[in-house]
């Protein structure tokens, strides 16, 4: 399985690694493949409050500009500043070093609608 089983996924192709009330967020292997070479990443500043579904970050590739939506409501507590100088990290390691932000989430029940890895891959297969 390309997509790690310990993560949860959204239909907008984000992964969420939930630990307590901290959610680390990135884009999936599938998403980086569809976008192609990523050339620019715009991240929120630490302390920004976001609501589920709001724009969290912007990822720009040679093909397209994609919005990353907040999978959960909360406050941005950490951003991956390394991406500003090395956006290609997302292509190389989307589920690891290519993470985008960590949120301190306010409502854990928002995670209920996420997909697990097999369901996400099935969702991709159904296209």
């Amino acid at each position, binding site marked *: 399985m390309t997509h790690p089983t310990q993560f949860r996924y959204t239909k907008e192709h984000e992964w969420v690694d939930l630990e307590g009330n901290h959610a680390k967020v990135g884009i999936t292997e599938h998403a980086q493949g*569809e976008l192609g*070479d990523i*050339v*620019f990443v715009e991240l929120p500043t630490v302390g920004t409050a976001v609501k589920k579904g709001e724009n969290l970050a912007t990822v720009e590739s*040679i*093909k*397209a500009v994609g919005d990353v939506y907040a999978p959960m409501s909360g406050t941005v507590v950490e951003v991956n500043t390394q991406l500003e100088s090395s*956006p*290609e990290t997302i292509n190389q390691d989307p589920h690891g070093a290519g993470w985008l932000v960590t949120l301190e989430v306010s409502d854990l029940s928002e995670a209920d609608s996420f997909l697990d890895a097999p369901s996400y891959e099935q969702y991709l297969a159904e296209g």
Partner: protein
Amino acid sequence: MNTIFDHKLAKGVGGLLPALDVPEQGIEKLIPSSLRRTHAPRIPNLSEPELVRHYTQLSKVNYGIDDGFYPLGSCTMKYNPKINEDLARLPGFANAHPLADEDLIQGSLKLLYEASRYLCGIAGLAEVTLQPAAGAHGELCGMFLVKRYFEERGEEKRKRILLPDSAHGTNPSSATTAGFSATEIPSGKDGMINLATLEEALDDTVAAIMLTVPNTLGIFEERVLEVTEMVHAAGGLCYFDGANLNAFLGRARPGDMGADIFHFNLHKTLSTPHGGGGPGSGPVAVAQSLVDFLPVPRIVKDENRYRLDWNSPHSIGCIHSFYGNFGVILKAYAYLLLLGDTGLREVSENAVLNANYLQESLKQTYPLPYERLCKHEFVLSGKGLGEGISALDIAKRLIDYGFHPPTIYFPLIVPEALMIEPTECEGKETLDSFIEAMERIAVEAKENPRLLHEAPQYAPVRRLDQTRAARQPILTYPFDER
């Protein structure tokens, strides 16, 4: 490829100065040492023939509409009639000074006034500003108009702009730049706006919808009247992006479809040079309810005299110096006169006919995800054509066949999108040779994919590293390393 500074042999000087006919003063006396440069300026030292050859060589490795077929979707790369250029070079126009007294430029003002009237007629709207410099600038101007409209009504809470996912790519950025937030509306399976989805998105925070008609799939929004009615009923305005006007020029009017604001791209629809040959021009037409907010100055006619009117207290202000790109408006005006009503209708008829001829022929070979009668353009998919073959590979291989590639990877709702717009200017022979090239590429994709991956082979440059160009752009010339 050499830049003008790279010519190693260049040591000559192109210009000859006349003999000095006044007593020489000496630079020391004329300019204080603190203001004198310490190094010679970096001016290329080329003789006249070297200079001419440099630019002639560059022009030979370029590709434009005067070289061949240029089916760049959404860009309407139509032929630029040379009579436009002749007229723009008439001394009375070319030498008119932008600060000249109005009495001395009555002809130029009359031309601008009449061009405005023609554009209003085409749009079916009340007034137009000719100021915006290009399409996205027109969009921004339109968004400022929307903003002012709601400010004057005390409805500042209207902060959202609705955008179908098949809208023109610059729309979200224009809305955001003007201070709105963009809400995307997914298309239905038929490639058009789903009314239920629209209904859900509409509330009293929506300022406007930005519609592209026909949309970027080349499909006419068949429910456009319902869409504009629903937005108006919710208190919002309807902005129409005019990038695709070539699809219905002279056949339908945005004003009749419910548009409150509509922008033109003179460099697309009305045949003025496009891209590197610009600049562009993006006039914005509006309904009566928005006329007071249009940029200043406005061109008015009193009896038989034309003047610039700056007295418009509700105006959003000036958005371009003087009155926009005059030379471009002039060329568009020439094109309007050249074709007349009947000619303009034939433009859109033939643009749509050409696009449907290509679509029908090419859908045998390439997937056509949204299949219906198209307007001036259509979107194929390069997906599944062969192992590891991308839209980019197909585009690059087309260069080897002597064609400019179509737009690729847009719209985003079609995977490996190839967006093809032939325009009305091409004859059947050209279209047939393009079809043949596309068919041969499809065969190569299966039998000899290397030809695609390594394309272009016959262009002045091979495959460029677009990722490195985006990640590490070199925007200055490294003089010191040479």
